[in-house]
Every structure is written in C-alpha cells, then in structure tokens.
C-alpha cells in the first residue's frame, strides 16, 4: 500500500512541471540570490555594496587631504569629496551633507575638523572631533565607516601618533611619578568603564567622532521618526499586494473553469468590460490593503503618515502601486491556463522579484549588480517610492516638490500598469470568440 502511494505521488509530481520547479529549482534560485546578497557570489571580498561616503574636508589642510586619500584606498568605501559634487550646494557643507545622506545619495557623510592633526591621537583632549552623519536605514554603513575612520588614523598619521607618544613620554619621563601613576590609573579606570559608546565617548577614539542621524538634520515642523518600519511596511506590503492581486486575478480562471465566464461573455458583457471592471475593483481593494498596512504602521509603530505632505504622496503612490499590482495579477492570470499554474508561476515570480527588489533584504546591503537588478522589479520601484515618502523626504520641500520627488517611481509603476493591463487585455481576447 505504501509503495503504491509512493508511486502515485511520484507520478503526480513528475507530471506537474510547476510543482517540480517549486520543489527543486526554486530553492536553488533563492539560495543563489541570498548567496549573492550576503556572500558576494564567492569572489572572496564579501561582494558588499561599497559604502558611499561624502567627505567634507578643508582643501588647504594637507593632513586632512592625506587622511582622505588614505581613507579612499579602502575597497569597501566609495568616497566623494564635497567639492566634487556635480552641483555643490550653496548652504553650509554640514547641512548639505546631511541633506545628501537623507536623500539617499550617500550612505554616510564624514565632516573632518580643521586643522585635523590637532584632533587625532589626543584622546579627546585636543581639537574638535569629526562628525559622522549616517542613515539609520543603513546601520552597516554607520558602524563600518566609524571603524574604518579609526583604523585610518593609524595609517594616515603614524608620525603624529609617534610624536604624540614621545611627547607624552618626554613630558612625563620615567619612572612614574605619583602624578603619572594617577594619570595611568585614571586612564585605566576610564578604559575599564562601560561608558564607551556613541559620540559621547570620544575620548576612547584616536579621532573623536560625533555620530548624527541624518534624519535629525534640518527637521522642520515634522517630528523625526524613530524607526525604519516604513521600509518594511512597504517591502512586506508590496509583496503581499502582489500575492493577493494575483490570487484575485485568478478569479478569471475560476470563472473559466466553472463555466461562469462563458455565461458572462454570452451576455451583453464584453471581455474588455470584464477585464476593466476586474482591474478597477482589484485596484481599489489593493489601495485599501496597502492603506490598512500603513495606517497600522502609523498607529502601532509610529510611521509618520499623518501629515498633509506625507499623506498626499502616500495616497498617490498607493493608488498607482495598487493599479500596477492589479494589472500584474491580471496579466499573470491571463497567461495561465489554470489556477494551479497561476499559483505556481506567481509564487516563483513574486518571490524572486521580492528577494531581488528589496522586500526581503534592503537593497543597500546587496552587491551592486543585484541592487541594479532590483530596478527591473515592481517591488524595487514601489519600495523606492515609499522610501522617498517616509525616509528620504526633504522637510524643506513644498507639497508640490514632495509629489514631484516621487514622480519617477510613480511614472515607472504607472507605465508598468498600463503595459501589463494592455497585455492582459490582449491575452484575454483569446477567451472571447475564437
């Protein structure tokens, strides 16, 4: 009996290409995607996206320039000097650097004090510290840059560090006087204490670093959000929107299988009316689905939804995204011959798009090629649009500018919606009189 059951299940599996693909090919595809994201495709250096850093340093400070040159040799960093920006902002470099990070043009910014050599190796006793402006959405960039800056001090300024050490030795001499012993004890106590993190503990660093959240820079009347929940609301929301829209599109196949479609199309209803009606309904339900997701995010996780600018951009983006997802679901439904086939195809396509497009792993941690591939997915564009609304919005933007800010994403998704709907309508024609 068991042998017969094994045979029965094997026959069913091997004659179902979609089930076979889901069983044996999809795991390999996903393994490859995640290996490429986190393993860099086996090229040994981890393959992480280089951290894009904007550096503000005084041009006439030779040591600062040497420091930047040395830092630029780090393979995991891509440095851009402030003066090399295509369009150098007219505002103060500090403010401009924060805006650049906030807008997502850079993962972090490093503002070096002048003269820099007065600030290194003094354990907080010398000149002012450097400022590291980070994007809280990308904690990897923040901590990696912080560490690399400290390491760079030793590489860029071994002479300064030696001079500092010798100077200290000359000043204090040997053997240790009670004063020296007191200093050593004090330093030891300090180093042994737990008070050693964040910008406030600059004294433990070779170059004191004040770390600032880019989103706290230049805030207007909007409160700074405390988390990047909006990213995950968009990522998860878009993925499930695609799943639910595909399932909804399957109603066409359900009606075909039950004979209802034949009956509908034997009435005064045309296939184009049927498709448009379904698309409209799915767009409305998709809009509500995303709205529920973000309102929940706003109420429970403080996603900053309830301002005029954010709400306006959100409504526009959500309507367009829902229209695109509805068209996507209907297109997949029209090219499928059965609901089982639709289920298999949609699972494969949506999971891959979600993985590559950033619904599962943020695109900024992906290798460059993978991050670029995300631009060819529905998820990638939709998530970018929501990121612009909730994370990268410029507080100084007017309502019109805020909407214009997301115009590229809305345009691309809108175009996808039109194309997919047109393809779906064309494909559905075969269900009309043949």
């Amino acid at each position: 009996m068991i042998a017969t059951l094994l045979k029965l299940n094997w026959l069913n599996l091997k004659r179902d290409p979609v089930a076979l693909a889901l069983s044996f090919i999809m795991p390999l595809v996903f393994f490859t995607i995640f290996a490429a994201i986190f393993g860099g495709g086996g090229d040994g250096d981890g393959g992480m996206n280089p951290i894009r850093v904007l550096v503000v340093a005084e041009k006439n400070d030779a040591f600062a320039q040497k420091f930047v040159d040395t830092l630029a040799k780090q393979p995991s960093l891509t440095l851009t000097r402030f003066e090399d920006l295509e369009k150098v902002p007219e505002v103060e470099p500090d403010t401009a650097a924060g805006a650049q990070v906030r807008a997502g043009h850079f993962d972090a910014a490093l503002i070096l004090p002048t003269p820099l050599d007065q600030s290194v190796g003094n354990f907080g006793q010398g000149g002012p510290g450097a400022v590291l402006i980070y994007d809280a959405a990308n904690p990897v960039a923040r901590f990696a840059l912080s560490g690399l800056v400290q390491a760079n001090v030793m590489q860029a300024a071994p002479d300064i560090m030696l001079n500092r050490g010798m100077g200290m030795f000359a000043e204090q001499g040997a053997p240790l006087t009670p004063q020296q012993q007191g200093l050593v004890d004090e330093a030891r106590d300090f180093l042994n204490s737990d008070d050693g993190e964040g910008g406030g503990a600059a004294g433990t660093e070779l170059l004191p670093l004040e770390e600032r959240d880019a989103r706290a820079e230049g805030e207007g009347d909007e409160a700074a959000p405390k988390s990047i929940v909006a990213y995950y609301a968009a990522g998860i929301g878009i993925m499930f929107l695609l799943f639910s829209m595909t399932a909804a599109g399957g109603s066409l196949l359900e009606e075909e299988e039950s004979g209802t479609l034949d009956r509908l199309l034997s009435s005064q209803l045309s296939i184009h009316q049927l498709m448009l009606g379904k698309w409209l309904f799915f767009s409305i339900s998709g809009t509500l689905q995303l709205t529920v997701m973000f309102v929940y995010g706003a109420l429970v996780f403080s996603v900053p939804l309830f301002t005029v600018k954010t709400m306006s951009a959100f409504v526009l983006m959500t309507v367009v995204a829902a229209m695109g997802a509805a068209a996507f679901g209907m297109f997949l439904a029209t090219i499928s011959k059965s609901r089982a086939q639709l289920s298999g195809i949609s699972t494969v396509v949506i999971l891959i798009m979600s993985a590559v497009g950033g619904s599962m792993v943020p695109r900024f941690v992906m290798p460059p090629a993978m991050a670029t591939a995300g631009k060819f997915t529905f998820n990638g564009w939709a998530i970018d649009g929501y990121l612009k609304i909730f994370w990268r919005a410029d507080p100084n933007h007017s309502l019109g500018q805020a909407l214009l800010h997301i115009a590229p994403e809305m345009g691309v998704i809108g175009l996808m919606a039109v194309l997919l709907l047109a393809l779906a309508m064309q494909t559905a024609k075969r269900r009309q009189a043949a």
Partner: protein
Amino acid sequence: MTSDSAVVLEIREAHKSYGTRAALNGAAFSLRKGEWLALLGPNGAGKTTLVRTIAGRLQLDRGEIALHGQTLSPQDQAARRQLGIVPQELALYPNLTARENLDIFGRFHGVGGQELKDKINWALDWIALADRANERIKGFSGGMKRRLNIAAAVLHQPSVIMLDEPTVGVDPQSRERIWQMLNQLRAEGASLVLTTHQLDEAQTICDRIVIIDGGRTIAAGTLEELITQTIGPQRGVFCKVRDAQGAVEEEHHAVDDLSEALPSLLSTLKTQNKQLLDLRIQAPTLQAVFLHLTGKELRE
C-alpha cells in the same frame, strides 16, 4: 407550433476546425417559433461547438447563423439579446444568494430597475426557490442549482432558449419540475433547443429531432419521420417461451400490424408446443434510431 411557423433560428452549413480536426463539417438545422427541438449526437459529434457558436463564444470558419432572420456575427452580443443560453455547468457564483445571482446575471443581460426586481420575483417563484432566495447557493442541492441555472438564463425573456444537458445529475423529482418549467416557457411562446443524452426524454418532450455526427447533420425530423427513414415502423414482439424439453428462451419478431400478427404468432407457438411465459411489445424508439444512425462503436 405548426410546420409553417416562422423560422426563428437557422444554422446554415456550419464549418469549424481546430487544426486539422473538423468539429463542424456542414451542420445545419432550423428552429421554428414555439418549437422544442432536440439536438442529439454522440460524444464529439459537435453539439457543444455548435451551441458555443450560436452563443457567440466561437467563430465559424464558414457558414451562417441567423436569429429572427438576422445574420449573427461572432462578437455581436447585442444581436443575441433574444438568445438565452443555459450551460451544462452550474455557472453560478456559489458565495452569492439565489437572489443575488439572478440580479447579477439579469443586469449583464441588460435588465434593470423595477423590471429586474419583478423578473427576479417571478423567477424565484418559477423555480420554487422563493423561500430560499436569500441563502447562499453553495448549500443548495443539485436540483435547486440546476433550476437556478436555468432561471439565470431567461430573466431577459429570450425568444430562443438553448439548453445544454439541463437535467444532468438531478433526481427524478427535480427533473420533472424542470420539464414543467420549460413547458411553461414554451407555452408562453419561447422556442427551445435541447442537447441531451437522455433520449427517452428527448423522445417524449421534443417536437423535432436533429441528429449530428462528425460535425454534420445526419438526420432531422419528427420521431415518426426518423423512424420511417431509418429502422422502419415495425414493432418488436419479444416472446419468452419454454419448449417441450423445458428449455427457456426469448424469441424476437418484427411485425407491421400487431392486430394481424399477434393471433398467428400465438397460434404458431401453440403448434410448436411452446409455453408462452411472457410477452413484451416494443415500439420503435429514438434510441434504436440513434444507434442505427450513429453505430454502436464507442466515441471518445
């Protein structure tokens, strides 16, 4: 209905092929006003293709379909306003109530407003589901769904109704009810085309019969005409007898006139010293005509 009633639906030289396989190969028939026509054929004969073509769901390669004298083009659903198609499938929405299903399909057929409300109430009474009107139909019996399936196709009061196996899978009581409903429509002037494998029902109910096979019409006429054209009007007389040795067998005799043939048949049995155990007389049936025309080979 009389033989000179107006033709309401006419199929002329219908041809339709799928690749090299001809599903319709010159099929033709006409339906007169108030007539009840049975469209019969073995599996794969082209019945469903023909019905789907008439419904506008398939496009003929060659040939014509005329409804009330107007030639129909494939996607011209407005011209098909006078058609009611009852599909073999239970093409209804299971999560909707009976009333909601009727409302939806009535609207798609162009009925609305008070007229639709009146037609829905009429239909619910007609199919004996007025007391279940507001229940979701997924809990309905097969017979109830079948009746609703028919009602959804006639809310717009079509003059020509095509029914594809309307009684398949229902119990005798529901079947009887469905025939009563359809007779009521015919009494009100509708013309009906019925495709079915229930030959006994087709024989009893329909005025005329069209048999198609291989995509073409191979016979058409009243039952009597078909019998005359094919197996002839002879009755079959089946005599179960026991002979002098005690062996029991059944003898079959074909006779033209029972009043003349039976006395001599009984006399012959007596002469042969055979005891008559049972006597069965069978009139020519549509089943016999059908098998005579289409053969006994399985069609798959």
